[in-house]
């Protein structure tokens, strides 16, 4: 019976109801997009790291895994690692900011890199042909409308797109290692080393041997599993607080919208609430009606937010596919639903309290 009243009340003011639901939907999609983005970016980084095909990653001393730029390892170390037991291939890369956005360009030794990773799959063009060739992945190409032969500026120089490859290996922009080293004044230096073993089962043993070597003290030596596990939300500085701040803002906005919506609803239904009380309705009964209304708003808003998050994923893929990856995060749906419903109910408490407190006789004579 109360459900009937709740449904009728919501239908009675369709625009107000719709706007409240949309506002809650926006609250929810904000959270889902942000969480989906951070998770998508992390997954993408892990996927690309695995795409290199290395069993072991070596990073120079004093660098964080996640801040890749800079080159402080001598290139000679590649040869050292290549000569160690179980090592089949060792190669390295120099990481350089591409100068725009979040992209970075990596200078690679292409033959070794292809050997390790199983080779690029060229959708267009081929490997570096001249000293001005750039390889980009398909997402980067489509985002920037690049074709083989296009000119493109990276590290303050114009390059020719020589090959477009399937995404998923290390990064989206590749140049020959020696060119990047020379252009950035890092001749003979690299940012990281990748090592492939005869058998992945030997990884732990080899990592232990490297770590036991006093000359490698301070170097970050990671199995690929360790390395990818470092890509987590806990290791991304400021992401967690940022997510919390956005959640807080989103919930606050949802709260305010429902507060106003229910406040006006209670005001315009003053007389009806008086009628319910004249029929013997206790405060709990009236509170129940209003909370259920808010709960329905919250629930529908939460569902709408989930639907919206598919939309934001589409937009992200369409307009920022090379830079950003957004995942759909179903494990967060219960949380956002709880936040939406909880926020809506919280926003209803004060209006409901006013409704319950108002004098029945005054309410009955209210027009």
């Amino acid at each position, binding site marked *: 019976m109360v459900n009937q009243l709740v449904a009728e009340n919501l239908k009675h003011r369709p625009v107000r109801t719709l706007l409240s639901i949309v506002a809650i939907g926006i609250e929810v999609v904000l959270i889902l997009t942000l969480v989906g983005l951070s998770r998508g970016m992390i997954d993408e980084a892990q996927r690309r790291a695995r795409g290199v095909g290395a069993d072991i990653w070596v990073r120079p001393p004093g660098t964080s895994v996640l801040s890749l730029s800079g080159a402080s390892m001598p290139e000679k170390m590649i040869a050292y690692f290549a000569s160690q037991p179980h090592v089949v291939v060792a190669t390295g890369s120099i990481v350089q900011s591409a100068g725009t956005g979040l992209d970075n360009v990596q200078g690679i030794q292409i033959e070794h890199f292809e050997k390790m990773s199983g080779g690029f799959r060229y959708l267009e063009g081929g490997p570096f042909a001249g000293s001005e060739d750039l390889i980009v992945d398909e997402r980067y190409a489509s985002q920037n409308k690049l074709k083989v032969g296009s000119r493109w500026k990276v590290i303050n120089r114009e390059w020719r797109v020589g090959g477009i490859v399937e995404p998923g290996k290390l990064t989206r922009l590749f140049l020959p290692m020696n060119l990047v080293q020379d252009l950035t004044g890092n001749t003979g230096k690299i940012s990281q080393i990748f090592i492939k073993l005869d058998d992945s089962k030997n990884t732990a043993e080899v990592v232990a041997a490297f770590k036991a070597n006093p000359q490698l003290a301070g170097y970050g030596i990671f199995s690929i599993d360790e390395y990818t596990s470092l890509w987590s939300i806990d290791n991304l500085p400021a992401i967690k607080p940022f997510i919390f701040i956005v959640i807080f803002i989103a919930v606050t906005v949802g709260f305010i919208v429902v507060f106003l919506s229910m406040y006006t609803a209670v005001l315009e239904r003053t007389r009806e609430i008086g009628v319910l009380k004249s029929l013997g309705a*206790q405060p709990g009964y009236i509170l129940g009606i209003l909370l259920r209304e808010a709960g329905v708003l919250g629930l529908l808003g939460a569902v709408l937010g989930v639907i919206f998050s598919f939309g934001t994923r589409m937009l992200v893929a369409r307009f920022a596919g090379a830079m950003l990856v957004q995942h759909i995060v179903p494990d967060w749906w219960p949380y956002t639903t709880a936040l939406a419903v909880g926020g809506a109910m919280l926003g209803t408490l004060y209006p409901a309290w006013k409704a319950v407190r108002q004098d029945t006789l005054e309410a009955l004579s209210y027009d």
Partner: protein
Amino acid sequence: MTNGGPIIRVQALRKVFRVGDVDVEALRGVDLSVNKGDFVAIVGPSGSGKSTLFHILGGLTAPTSGSVSIDGTDLATLSENGRTRVRGSKVGFVFQKYNLLPTLSARDNIAIALDIAGKATEPDASFQDVLRFLGIEHRLDHKPRAMSGGEQQRVAIARAIVNQPAILLADEPTGNLDTASSDAVLALLRDLNQRMGQTILMITHNPEAAAYANRTVKMRDGRIVS
């Protein structure tokens, strides 16, 4: 239920409203007994305290002093929630303005009174008889705004009696109705009283309406004068 004594017993009832710095004495010592099965018309000039008396009888507001007991329950000692509970179980209200919930159908307007009382919302067979008797059976799926004043008032009466209250309080129930609808509603109240033994108190300004009752109480200046 009652043990032969009056179903309403009011003694030395006073109600003072404070408006700014001024005290308005709406009731100045009312004594009244109503027996089960009575149909009482309450008449008197505007401002004489009729509605105020009803509001106290129905527990909508607390008396300033005096005692009020409905069907054996003393209202004066109850909290607001306690009075609300008594109202839900022992008192049915019918207002001049019908006061139906505009978003609900007639059926649901009646059912919500059952729901508030914590009963199943499907009225039982005997209640179906009442609906037939009120002549609103065929209008139950309509919303109030699609109904005439007379029909709305009959739905309001159905809602007021669906929980079988000890007393039915009707404050100028025909005040907004044309003569024909008015006569129908009054006849209905009389039938409710005569056939079902429903105790009814009805405020009216209209002597013809008062004639439907079997007892008339006159009020003036916050007192009962006869």
